[in-house]
């Protein structure tokens, strides 16, 4: 491992002295380690002249792989440390941007109780970003939106949050206690950018269309205030779970109101996710805290597939 670190440092600094300083070691042992590595691999990594060191073509080919191995090693060591210490170390976790402050607070309080000694590095990340980082082992655990590609992941229970609609208080549909999807016809829909969770984005639009709401246009927005601003100024509507709706619902509503949707309304489905085989005690604690917070603070319910499944012959399998 140390040999690879030496190789990468020299490659990046193009200078034995600077690389040695960066690694906190003297120059002679550094150049010995690099030579030993070259002997072991049977590959010449650097051209050395009296004043200069330059990476060879072969060295360039191996550099990316070396960095990859090192980054894996770091996450391996971090995991090992956590496993060894049980209650201490660092957990890198992520949540999607659509959770309410209350839900996040409930999760953090619960997790703190379960694992007081653990340092939590929490990020707000889209599903796509979480999947990338989970795959690269830059993230230990997250909460992702389904549908998404779950290859290589282990999942906590899938929970469902029904979506309602945010609309201007003056809209005709706002007078209804529940809004049927076709009543939104002709309005623009505000949705998160597709890249954040492409499969979910497509599913939401397909479900709306099936229920009788095909938006005139789709506008992209994510932050709560930005979305509310668009709803107010343009008469567009946005999908939003009840727990993330703006405050003041019920009596004395604001300019933007939230209503439940009927007629085959779409829903958000989440679960905690972590890389297969890396569900240590800390990851499990976070996953359980997230599941608990979603159920208690965000009103999520277990996702039970209630609809019939009609496999078509083109699926080429049958149960």
């Amino acid at each position, binding site marked *: 491992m140390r040999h690879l670190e030496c190789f990468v440092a020299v490659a990046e600094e193009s200078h034995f002295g600077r690389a040695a300083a960066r690694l906190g070691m003297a120059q002679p042992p550094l150049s010995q380690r690099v030579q030993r590595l070259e002997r072991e691999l049977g590959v010449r990594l650097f051209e050395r002249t009296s004043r200069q060191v330059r990476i060879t073509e072969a060295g360039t080919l191996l550099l990316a792989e070396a960095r990859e191995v090192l980054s894996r090693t770091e996450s391996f060591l971090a995991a090992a440390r956590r496993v060894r210490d049980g209650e201490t170390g660092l957990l890198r976790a992520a949540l999607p941007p659509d959770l309410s402050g209350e839900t996040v607070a409930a999760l953090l309080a619960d997790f703190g109780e379960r694992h007081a000694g653990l340092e939590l590095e929490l990020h707000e990340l889209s599903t796509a970003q979480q999947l990338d980082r989970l795959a690269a082992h830059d993230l230990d655990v997250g909460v992702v939106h389904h549908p998404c590609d779950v290859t290589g992941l282990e999942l906590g229970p899938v929970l469902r949050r029904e979506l309602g609609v945010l609309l201007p208080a003056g809209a005709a549909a706002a007078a209804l206690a529940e809004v*049927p999807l*076709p009543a939104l016809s002709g309005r623009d829909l505000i949705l998160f950018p597709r890249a954040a969770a492409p499969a979910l984005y497509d599913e939401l639009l*397909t479900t709306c*269309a*099936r229920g*009788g709401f095909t938006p005139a246009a789709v506008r992209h927005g994510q932050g709560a205030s930005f979305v509310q601003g668009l709803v107010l100024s343009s008469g567009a509507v946005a999908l939003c779970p009840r727990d993330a709706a703006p405050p003041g619902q019920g009596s004395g509503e604001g300019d933007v109101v939230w209503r439940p949707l009927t*007629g085959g309304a779409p829903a958000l489905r989440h679960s905690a996710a972590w890389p297969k085989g890396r569900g240590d005690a800390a990851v499990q604690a976070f996953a359980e805290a997230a599941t608990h917070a979603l159920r208690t603070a965000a009103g999520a319910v277990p996702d039970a597939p209630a*609809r*019939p*499944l*009609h*496999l*078509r*012959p*083109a699926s080429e399998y049958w149960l």
Partner: protein
Amino acid sequence: MTDAVARIHAALADAGVTGWLHALDIDSGEQLDAGADQPVCTASVHKLCLLVTLHEQAARGALDLAEQVEAVPEGRTAGPTGVAAMLDAARMSLRDLAYLMMAVSDNAAADLLLRRVGLDAVNATTARLGLTRTRAVHTFGEMLATVREDAGPDGARALADPRVVSRLRALDPARSNRSTPRDMTRLLGAVWRDEACTPEHGAAMRRIMGLQVWPHRLASGFPFDDVHVAGKTGSLPTLRNEVGVVEYPDGGRYAVAVFTRTAHTAATLPAADAVIGTAARIAVDALRARAFRSSR
């Protein structure tokens, strides 16, 4: 509804096809008409009429669906699927031939069944069900023979020539097996309401129609695992059809018949296949929206 018809025509035009559609809410009788009474060549869609005839005769006791048939290679009707594509002798029951005829549009299976029931019986069945504009004038082998004959010595290659396509008798509803979109939804409605046959035979026909393998036409418009699609396609040079029934989990059942012609003579035109599903979906959505409005 007129908006839906306009969108159907726009979708068809975008895909480079001319088309005629009729959609029927099987239970309420609500309809959508986008050229429902256009005389059209059925091509392999007529296998649906044959399927109904076969089951009707079985229901009357005129034949046994488990009756075995020898399918020998000599004189076998040609085709790219099923028994028509096989090299050796096979032996199977009438109902399994019917399955192949509907699942993969097997021409040899269809003609073996036609040999058993006769063309007149097929026309008697469609007449009895009130399909006044539906008629079979030849077997599937005979239909393909007219195409071969009209294409001339250059064979399939000649089918890229618009002049050759324009003189194909198989594409002339007056001289080939024919129907209208409205007649076909009427037939589907009868099958789904168990009016064409006994409930037992109706269920057998609906099962077979749900086993059609093609995902590219009608079914493509309904990308939902909880929606059941059953149908029968029909294709000839420049001609793409499908008739079928779409069933929603809330109980909604819609018969849709879509018949199209492409301007282009190419045999592979995925957009022309897919627009059959797109148009059907617009029609079904419109019928469902109408049902939703009338329920409020």
